[in-house]
């Protein structure tokens, strides 16, 4: 059986959930082989085995973590040449897509980005134009390279060997052009990651200030949810950019999305409209976000949200 290469997403030795989703998906199309760049593979091995990774190809040198996208692309390209895999799966994150782009050029292969499902024959489903059209497409040329959106698949455990295979590769000089000199992590408390969370509570311009975002955080915490924000809120500096939901932010598709003080501009909807259930709190009954609402409250968020938090506190979260 041909291998399906899965590029691991990890930070500080911790494997991102999307990697387990990709391994789960890969199992349907071949033997899942994880590709790991930089340090940390040994520590992650057990977790990778739990989801059925047959092999873990490792390019462990520190330099593989020090440059922008070239290390992953070079390692994947050499494995594509050597193993002729059935496909290469990466996470559809900013970086994952860039790696996919480079690999496509290196191997002369077609690339599909932002897939939300894979059908038989590696037919990828995408949701385009802000979620209004569903397209199915496939790669015609070379090795299919598919960037899959986080949270599109439920990771399913299945034991795998996760044999570590050290790769004898060196980063080319051309690959050392863009050096990462500093990494800054802007955490906002211990909450689930935005793209992985099953509930997301987002605040917009209606929240009014950075201080008032604590209201959004309280609501999120009462539900065990991640916090998101509209562009109006991140541009104003009320919440860091990596929490932005929408066209130029993250795309989320949680079980429940709560939009608080957000009008529902098309660029915002592009990032959340495939959420299962949508709840809206907004004082303007004409706000377009109500078109998406399964349940909406027309009212002042400064009144509605505290009451909701109190009610949830009484009932308890499941």
């Amino acid at each position, binding site marked *: 059986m041909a291998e399906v290469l899965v590029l691991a997403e990890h930070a500080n030795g911790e494997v991102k959930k999307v990697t387990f989703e990709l391994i789960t998906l890969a199992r349907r199309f071949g033997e899942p082989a994880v590709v790991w760049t930089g340090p940390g593979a040994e520590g992650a091995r057990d977790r990778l085995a739990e989801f059925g990774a047959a092999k873990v190809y490792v390019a462990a040198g520190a330099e593989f973590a020090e440059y922008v996208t070239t290390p992953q692309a070079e390692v994947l390209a050499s494995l594509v040449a050597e193993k002729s895999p059935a496909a290469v799966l990466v996470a559809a994150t900013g970086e994952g*897509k860039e790696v996919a*782009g480079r690999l496509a050029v290196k191997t002369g292969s077609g*690339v599909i980005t932002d897939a939300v499902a894979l059908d038989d024959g590696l037919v990828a489903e995408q949701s385009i134009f802000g979620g209004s059209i569903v*397209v*199915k497409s496939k790669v015609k040329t070379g090795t299919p390279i598919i960037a899959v959106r986080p949270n599109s698949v439920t990771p399913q455990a299945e034991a795998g060997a996760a044999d570590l295979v050290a790769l004898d590769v060196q980063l080319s000089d051309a690959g050392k*052009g863009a050096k990462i000199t500093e990494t800054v992590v802007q955490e906002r408390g211990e909450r689930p990651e935005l793209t992985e969370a099953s509930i997301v509570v987002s605040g917009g311009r209606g929240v009014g200030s950075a201080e008032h975002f604590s209201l959004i955080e309280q609501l999120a915490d009462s539900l065990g949810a991640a916090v998101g924000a509209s562009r109006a809120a991140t*541009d104003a500096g009320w919440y860091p950019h990596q929490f932005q939901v929408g066209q130029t932010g993250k795309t989320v598709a949680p079980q429940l999305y709560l939009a608080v003080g957000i009008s529902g501009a098309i660029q915002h909807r592009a990032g959340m409209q495939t959420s299962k259930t949508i709840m809206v709190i907004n004082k303007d009954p004409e706000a377009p976000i109500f078109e998406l609402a399964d349940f909406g*409250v027309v009212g002042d968020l400064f*009144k509605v949200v*505290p009451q909701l938090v109190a009610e949830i506190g009484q009932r308890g979260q499941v």
Partner: protein
Amino acid sequence: MNIVVCVKQVPDTWAERKLKQGDATLDRESVDGVINELDEYAIEEGLQQAEAHGGEVTILTMGPQKAADSIRKALSMGADKAVHVLDDGLVGTDGLQTSQVLAQVLTRIGFDLVIVGSESTDARMGVMAAMLAERLGVPQVSLASKLEIDGQAVKIRRQTDYGYDQVEASLPAVVSVVEKINEPRYPSFKGIMAAKKKPVETLGLADLGIEADQVGLAGASTEVVSFAQRPPRQAGTVVKDEGDGGAKAAEFLAAQKFI
């Protein structure tokens, strides 16, 4: 400094965008074309860097005849000249092939700095900076929310999923910008008048030595199997807060088993 900004014309995000029944390509005729919003930030950044360090800004667009309007707008913002790749053979060209065409032009006209948007609002691939850097063999400094140039050194703040990275490279390089980097200017009346006289070079596939079967639908590396309109969401319940809005919201969440 020789700065080239890649600008794509896209259907207006606010319009209803459709795929054509026959070949599943984007219906570009039925809607207004505008500059890809992210590319306005790329143009602005190009202009600011040229103002700070001297040099010329060239707009590079591959697209149909009507993309000429977007080129004019970019020139009226202050760019110096433009190259328009225009050829009927390009209909249906995918991202991989687009990068080949753009790279070919870039090699031909030369550059110190190439600036692209972080993604286009229609294709939303977000791959162009990586593909161009790979083809041109120059560093990729992408997803920049801040760009500094000092002599030959380029420094960016790269937007990441967890915060940001500082990244350093040297010119020539390919930069992609996110919308946090600047505030694009509006064309002035003077700019609009001046743009009419600025040179636009039009190139076809033959000029670039690209064979017709390498591009367009025939040469595309991906194909659409099917597409369908997503069924609209079912209308939900909307209540007005009469002092009990939070409680009603909680009832809904409980009924849906979220709490």
